[in-house]
């Protein structure tokens, strides 16, 4: 089956010739009309539309956005905050940056609608520390929107006021974990908080109810309010509504970003039809489907089971190429849709070295609060680095796996899973390569690039 055609909803104007990131261009393209429409409605009606849309968070976990908003403690009497998670740091993910650089007003409009829908008077855009240009663009865009009375006091004469502040991140991956982000925004080290009791919806920023949403998620809200939740839900598949942006990197002919109705495209269509397949003379070996923390898929393996199609349970028997790229299907085969970062590795890649690289990243980014993640991530890194740069032992394969198994489900935040899933899955799927690495290394050319 050929791939479906792209459906550019969020990325409609990305890389469009002549499209600029100033407000005039945005307004020329119908910008802020949805906000004008939204502020004339009741906030609870807007929330209902988002619920109906079935929108799932694009930050990684795919958490239903309408449900998240319904958990917000609206009776505490405390202010409600909204935080835009623009810390985009998951390796392999590069969608939020495009939005902020090229279409910042789309984010601001989505944010303002979401703020209005949730009675938020103050919002923060927490932008990754390494994106100074993005921060500058957002500051300018907010100033432009404020000049047009679209942000700030008494928006469009409705009596509703809301400020947006840009906050530059502290330069760590863990600042993207929502409670670590909140700590960081409060001016502290981004140590994630324990949940319970510190669920953001109840005890978030400054111990007030807080909504944390990804950049892309909030952009979707704009389109939901524009077309209505029910209409939006028609895009994609049930349970996986709207569009999904895939950031494809690695060994394909045409890496880049692609936006499709969720659940309508398979991995094979994406990599072969859309991205042009493997590089000349190479074959696909493995792919990580949802950012580097997602469990790796090995080309050639089969996934079997039963799944729900409509109301029926049907058998499936998929190869990697057959897997629909939606949250549920990827979860069903033991990985995840995550942030949409698709990392492709071909037969030139040695999996031990690839894992050594990933482990070095996670070790460097563990905040260090909780024992299993702090010690486990470093131990895995030390083992895999030693295998690559020093002496590799056959028993390292089993050791690596066993160390990784002692981490997930036992930590304060999901970084525990993020740092251990790569090792767990690499060791399950490429065990032979790890066990044989000591031998294989003897035949490696001396001038190979060191990876770690």
């Amino acid at each position: 089956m050929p791939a479906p055609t792209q459906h550019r909803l969020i990325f409609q104007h990305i890389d469009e010739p002549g499209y600029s990131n100033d407000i005039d261009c945005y307004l020329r393209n119908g910008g802020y009309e949805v906000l004008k429409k939204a502020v004339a409605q009741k906030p609870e009606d807007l929330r209902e539309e988002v619920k109906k849309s079935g929108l799932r968070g694009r930050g990684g976990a795919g958490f239903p956005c309408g449900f998240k908003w319904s958990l917000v403690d609206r009776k505490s009497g405390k202010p409600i905050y909204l935080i835009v998670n623009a810390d985009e740091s998951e390796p392999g993910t590069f969608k939020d940056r495009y939005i902020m650089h090229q279409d910042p007003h789309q984010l601001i409009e989505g944010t303002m609608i979401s703020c209005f829908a949730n009675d938020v008077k103050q919002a923060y855009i927490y932008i990754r520390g390494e994106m100074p240009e993005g921060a500058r663009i957002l500051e300018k865009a907010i100033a432009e929107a404020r000049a047009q009375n679209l942000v700030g006091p008494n928006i469009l004469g409705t009596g509703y006021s809301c400020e947006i502040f840009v906050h530059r991140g502290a330069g760590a991956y863990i600042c993207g974990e929502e409670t670590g982000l909140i700590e960081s925004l409060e001016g502290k080290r981004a140590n994630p908080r324990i949940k319970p009791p510190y669920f953001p919806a109840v005890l978030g920023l400054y111990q007030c109810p807080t909504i944390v949403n990804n950049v892309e998620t909030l952009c979707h809200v704009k389109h939901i309010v524009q077309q209505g939740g029910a209409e939006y839900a028609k895009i994609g598949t049930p349970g996986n509504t709207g569009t999904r942006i895939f950031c494809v990197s690695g060994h394909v002919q045409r890496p880049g970003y692609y936006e499709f109705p969720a659940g309508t495209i398979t991995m094979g269509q994406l990599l072969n039809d859309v991205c042009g397949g493997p590089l000349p003379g190479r074959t696909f070996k493995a792919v990580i489907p949802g950012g580097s923390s997602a469990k790796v898929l090995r080309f050639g393996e089969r996934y079997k089971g039963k799944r729900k199609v409509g109301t029926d349970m049907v058998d499936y028997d998929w190869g990697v190429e057959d897997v629909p790229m939606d949250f549920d299907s990827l979860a069903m085969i033991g990985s995840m849709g995550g942030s949409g970062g698709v990392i492709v590795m071909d037969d030139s890649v040695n999996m031990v070295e690839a894992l050594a690289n990933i482990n070095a990243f996670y070790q460097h980014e563990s905040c260090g609060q909780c024992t299993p993640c702090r010690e486990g991530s470093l131990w895995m890194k030390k083992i895999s680095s030693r295998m690559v740069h020093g002496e590799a032992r056959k028993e390292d394969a089993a050791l690596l796996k066993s160390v990784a198994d002692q981490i997930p489900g036992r930590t304060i935040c999901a970084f525990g899973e993020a740092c251990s899933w790569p090792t767990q899955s690499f060791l399950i799927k490429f065990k032979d390569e790890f066990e044989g690495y000591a031998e294989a290394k003897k035949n490696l050319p001396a001038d190979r690039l060191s990876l770690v």
Partner: protein
Amino acid sequence: MIAAPKPDLVTVNIDGVDISVPKGTNVIEAAKLLQKDVPHYCYHPKLSVAGNCRMCMIEMGTPAFDPATKAPVTDPATGKQKINWIPRPQIGCGTTVSPGLHVKTSSSMVKDAREGVMEFLLINHPLDCPICDQAGECKLQEQATGYGRGYSRFIEEKNVKPKRTQLGPRVTLDDERCILCSRCVRFSKEIANDDVLGFVDRGSYSTLTCHPGKKLENNYSLNTVDICPVGALTSTDFRFKMRVWFLKQTNTVDIESSVGVNAVVWSREGTIYRLTPRRNDEVNDTWMPDSGRILYKQVAATDRLTAVKLNGSDTSLDIALHAAAALLKAGSVSIVGSGRASVEEQFLLKQLATATGAQGHLVARTASGDKLLISADRNPNVRGALVTGLISQLPCAELKQLSRDIDEGKIKTVVSHGEDLHAAGLTAALLAKVAVIYIGTHANATSAAANIILPTLHTFEKAGTFVNQQFRIQKFYAAVPAPQGATNDLVVLAKLVASTGTHTPASEVHALWPAIAAAVPALATMLYKNIPDTGLLLDATPWVGLPFVEGETLHYKPAAAIAAEAARS
């Protein structure tokens, strides 16, 4: 005694046993009530919950309810309500009890989780127990015994970190041993109100340090040493001096103010090595000021009085007591007692005052309180003097009345129990007009001017009780023997009372108590041996009107503040 309000109880099931615990209790504390140990590092009952060490993981389930009808779901296998067990371990410290909560503290899931954490904690640990001061009281050592693997799978190089950082004047840090539990950080911020500690760097390279330009030098810094579960924070004073398992522990009370912090004296073969706090949730929780800990140095101070003197010459105790008796019999006696003396000593001094017709005085010792564990009243036992009737009014810093009486020739002999009369406002000229009997531990201007010196014991060398600012009577015990030449205050005082010819009181604490109980209304029905280690609250009604100097401290509000609060609400 005022009864505490009955707490709301919640029934939970731990390892198959139902137990009712107060609402808000966490799983570690609930399990403790069943003598079940949930090993932990970062949790401390008096600090906020950080949940970072992950040692306290338990398996947990909640009663099942039908989502639609909300009716309890019955498990056909047991006939009881079904329990939904969470498929991954939860932290005991961060889990508060809820009705019907089920907990397993030693299932295979729990064991596996604990062993994993234990292994992780040890891989980068220097394992330098043979040269570590914490050995013997180290949680890491103890729990490695219980949950360690017994061998190492770690062949990589260990992390290297600073080994001897001076965090402040009294605390030394070995960063390699630190397990990053953040207890010390939380203590500094939450209890000492001195937010000076934090971590730099990330992951396993995280390193404890003081914030730039700051030092850990507040008067509570040594509490971080007490609560550090490992040998990372050590007391610079105690470091490398003695193995803890050689030390004898004796309960005592901090003598530096009327708070009455509960403490322990650690000694070996007559030498004191350190003082640490003892938990009393009504008084000091688990904390103690640094300043109270160094007071053990008074015991072996060079100015200790160890020779009985009569008019400047060494003599025997009997001869000196004989001479003292003659002075007392001659009349015109005044007695200066001490707020640092025990209830028992004050009781005998009161008897001496009655027998000699003398007036009892006390010297006030005040300074500003620190709102935590040092009060404005720097005497530990002014209330004891009130309770025993040695005084009926609060003392002043200067003995003005006594000065006048001496000046007017009304007084011929002054007995001072440990107070420096010179410091209390009696000039050398005035002291020259009277005979001074000095009963005390350390040399001062008064001992220099005294006709008779009767050397006695330091608090750490004797047993007794103090009554703290809450009117809580608390016991202390003899930790070390007295130096040669010094005599127990009770023996000296009992002999002086006996020499007046009225009666011969007991001169040992236990033996003396029946007489105390009989004579002192507030202490009626009590016996020394029956006073619990955390003390007993006395009925303070007779003294409520007195203008006590203490302001608010931990677990203490002055009566005026309570009254003002009641008026507001």
